[in-house]
């Protein structure tokens, strides 16, 4: 198996929506380390959050580099890394149609319902 080194960047989306047919752009140099996205859990009980990205030859090196770069001051207790090319993202140009259905459903918010003052604890 050979590594694909075509890069995606965080927040990026492939030209073809959904990340299919990604081989259209050949990489310049097969020997370049791929790009990884780093997610850090800052303490137990919290979600992993995107911290940044880095290049590494494999997952283990990505985790070790992430430790060196992103947790030098005890910023994390757990690290996830994922190769950037595996991240699929929504397209900002489609934001309107994608999020539009949520816009007119105000009844999904508690403040939509007006109750008498007498009702407590609700």
């Amino acid at each position, binding site marked *: *198996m050979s590594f694909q080194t075509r890069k995606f960047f965080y927040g990026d989306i492939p030209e073809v929506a959904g990340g299919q047919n990604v081989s259209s752009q050949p990489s*310049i140099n097969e020997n370049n*380390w791929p790009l990884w996205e780093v997610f850090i859990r800052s303490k137990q009980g919290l979600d992993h959050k995107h911290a940044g990205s880095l290049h590494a030859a*494999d997952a283990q090196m990505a985790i070790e580099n992430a430790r060196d770069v992103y947790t030098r001051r005890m910023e994390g207790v757990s690290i996830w890394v994922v190769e950037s090319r595996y991240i699929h993202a929504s397209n*900002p140009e489609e934001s309107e149609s994608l999020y539009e259905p949520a816009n007119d459903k105000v009844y999904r918010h508690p403040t939509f319902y007006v109750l008498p003052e007498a009702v407590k604890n609700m």
Partner: protein
Amino acid sequence: MQDLEKLFQDKIDTEIKIEPKDWMPEAYRKTLIRQISQHAHSEIVGMLPEGNWITRAPSLKRKAVLLAKIQDEAGHGLYLYAATETLGVTRESTIDDLNSGKAKYSSIFNYPTISWADIGAIGWLVDGAAIMNQVMLCRTSYGPYARAMVRICKEESFHQRQGFEALLVLSRGSKEQKVMCQDAINRWWWPSLMMFGPKDSESTHSDQSMKWKIKRMSNDELRQRFIDMIAEQVKVLNMTLPDPELKWNDIRGHYDFGEINWDEFWQVVKGNGPCNRERLEARNKAHEEGRWVREAAMAYAQKKAGKKAAA
């Protein structure tokens, strides 16, 4: 096309950050690539003058501090290279531009570190000047750049404090130490002021960058703010700044200061500073000598991945 441009400017005007896949004018993208990669190169080249003193730091404590600081600079370079990559350029081409001399980095790092006091002066003055700029950039309009700057600013304040503290120790020391402290301040003061770039009246990139909110304060504003700050701090050291014209101006509410030697500034920018050649040679040497490591790591990863697929 005009609509897209208007939409873009509306976002900027209403303080909505621009993210990598959003539409942006080509000139905005180019300006950011230039500025962020220059910034990244500065962090990386900036490790060299300080690296000069790792083995000669006066105590184990100072050595540990210096190592930690230099490691931070490497990290800062990485955050910024990653932000540059979100604009669609590869890491390799960005680094090639540095190594070939095509890309610029901050001229301050073309000055030599000839005494231990220089390490203190760099922390206090050079990092101090950088922080003025970086605090402003935490609010820059491009999301990945702003996020990198927030992270950098959090780490950078220890750099300035350790530098001032190192000078403070010297300023309270022997006669020789005091002379060394003053000498370092004398040599680093003017180059630090040059870090803010040309005067507003001469700066070619400023207007558009302000409109796009890449920059939010002008070179002269930031420089004045820095001078006002340092002119007070230097009193704590019982040292002086090498500018006979430096004087508080009650009417302006700022310090007046003497003329910067812009000839020197442009000479160093153009590659004729004391250490320009040495710095580039060091970067190229590191890049070449690391090549087999990069290749071996990749070959190993491919071999391992192959074995896993076969199993």
